[in-house]
């Protein structure tokens, strides 16, 4: 276990350096002047030069990168070029929004896709299976922006006079809402996230239905399933103890990777529903050439992916006896 962890962490560091270097390079290839943008339209060239100096943009690229790494080692992601806000603070306030969206969405897509996938696998070519497969096709093809707009139209406008209407924008803090915010508490938090969760999960639910269906169908043909039946085990027992346990192993791997990836920001969903998450924040930062914020989000996303992959690997060793980390 220990050598495995060391190896993985070394890999993580290499991966991390590569991602930040690439982000840095892309940023300097873009022909834009962040100093001029940060300074504003009324600035004279002398003002711009002063801003450039104070942001450290007059140093050579490698020097800037080095300074960035050193600050990072001290846990400091830097400050925004545009509004001088600490990036740590920006990430700290936007990441919970994205995490709420991603984890909530993941729970919903698992609750939907596992039963649907299992049902489809057990009744191939039935009406239910065909309906499920139609949903899969829809979920994979439909763009989240379109889904979000349709849902907003139905639940926010058409049904506005009914009990089941939902908010179509905004975010409420579940715990300790800031002073002056219009809403707060877990109920309002969930209420405002219903449509975003639904929009966000459709694609994943569709992919997972197909994954679960294929895995269950394959496991059903395994010899050990026949062995279980031959010893007189009932169908439900065969399903739960022998089929599901084996067919959900690959789902764990993919779930870990998908969650890690999605934590980098669900740009579309956050944009449609006005959620102040990482995705929307990074979009603003791109428009303003705000490198420290972009890098902050990239660093956060990289770390999320690395951590979730590590968690999956370790979880796998627990749930699959064939795998021993060495």
């Amino acid at each position, binding site marked *: 276990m220990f050598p495995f962890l060391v190896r993985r962490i070394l890999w993580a560091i290499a991966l991390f350096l590569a991602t930040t270097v690439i982000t840095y390079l892309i940023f300097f290839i873009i022909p834009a002047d962040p100093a001029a943008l940060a300074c504003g339209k009324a600035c004279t060239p002398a003002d711009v030069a002063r801003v450039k100096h104070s942001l450290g943009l007059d140093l050579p690229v490698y020097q800037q990168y080095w300074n960035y790494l050193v600050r990072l080692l001290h846990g400091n992601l830097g400050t925004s070029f545009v509004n001088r806000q600490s990036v740590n603070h920006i990430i700290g306030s936007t990441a919970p929004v994205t995490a709420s969206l991603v984890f909530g969405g993941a729970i919903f897509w698992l609750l939907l896709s596992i039963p649907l996938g299992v049902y489809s696998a057990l009744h191939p070519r039935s009406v239910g299976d065909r309906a499920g497969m139609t949903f899969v096709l829809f979920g994979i093809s439909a763009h989240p922006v379109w889904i979000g707009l349709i849902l907003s139209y139905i639940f926010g406008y058409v049904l506005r006079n009914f009990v089941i209407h939902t908010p179509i924008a905004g975010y409420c803090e579940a715990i300790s809402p800031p002073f002056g915010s219009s809403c707060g508490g877990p109920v309002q938090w969930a209420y405002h996230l219903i449509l975003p969760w639904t929009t966000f999960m459709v694609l994943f639910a569709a992919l997972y239905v197909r994954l679960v269906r294929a895995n269950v169908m394959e496991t059903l043909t395994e*010899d050990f399933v026949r062995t279980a039946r*031959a010893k*007189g085990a009932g169908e439900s027992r065969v399903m739960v103890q022998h089929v599901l346990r*084996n067919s959900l192993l690959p789902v764990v791997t993919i779930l870990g990777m998908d969650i890690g990836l999605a934590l980098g920001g669900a740009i579309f969903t956050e944009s449609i529903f006005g959620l102040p998450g990482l995705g929307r924040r990074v979009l603003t930062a791109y428009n303003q050439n705000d490198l420290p914020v972009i890098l902050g989000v990239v660093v956060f996303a990289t770390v999320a992916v690395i951590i979730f992959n590590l968690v999956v690997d370790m979880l796998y060793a627990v749930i699959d006896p064939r795998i021993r980390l060495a």
Partner: protein
Amino acid sequence: MTAILQVSDLKTSFRTDDGIVKAVDGVSFSVDKGQTLGIVGESGSGKSVTSLTIMGLNDKRAATSSGSVVLDGTEILGVSASQLQEIRGTRMAMIFQDPMTSLNPVKSIGWQLAEAVLVHNDVTKKAARDRATELLEQVGIPNSERRVDDYPHQFSGGMRQRVMIAMALINNPDVLIADEPTTALDVTTQAQILLLMKRLQDEYNMAIIMITHDLGVIAEVADDVVVMYGGKVVEQASVGELFDRPQHPYTWGLLGSLPRLDSRADRLEQIPGQPPSLLRPPTGCAFHPRCEFVFDRCRSEVPPLIDFGGANHLHRCLLGDGMRQEIWAKKKAAMKVEAA
């Protein structure tokens, strides 16, 4: 002695996209307690489907069966799923060809053995586990006390087949169906597994149905033999009769393709051609396209199962008695079975 398992006119067909496949077509046999029936035939002869039909393990959506399977006086073909579950694992058990894939990879073997006890008996988990350890001991797994918690991948193929046998015998069944239990194992392990099955058969006094394509295995363990071809029984006799006086050209071919140390023949005989398509079986005798003694009647007439010599020796060949004895005598000489 009354038969513990009596199979009569068993037929199983599968609905496929290309049409109906008659996998088993009118098979009858019986086995007594403590006796072993060998079913031999090549791939697609219907021997495995026969055993799965007896166990009720065919996919119900695709397979239909008719005929009769009587276990200890009770008809079990076509009974409800819950009745079948009660019979499976207690009265009848089965072991399979590939021990590498027949065990659940994510459950310890102790768990899998105990499951067989727990689904049929109202006992504590501890008791089930003790029984599992005891059975592992009986099938010759060293350190069974410790190994009961190991997972399938920690065992070799031979050891896994021992585990499968332990699992099959854990509820003391009347009938054990073994579907090519030694095919996936190396030769020395094969011999050990066959020996183990024989020993346990004496201890438990159970009937064994041994399905194999290997006449060597049949000679080793069987009391009676059923030779299957294209879903039908082509010859049926006691093992001594079958090896001494085989009556069907297909059986001759099988015997000729068996390597023998006491034979000086340079080459083994082979049966030319492919097994018949069950979707579009040949007219007349299913074996006629591959038979070297084929004549006109074989192409149009389905030969009935006829008695030879009155000693419960049945065969499905249209050649005259005298002709068959002559051919077999020549074949036997050519094989130089009687070693010089």
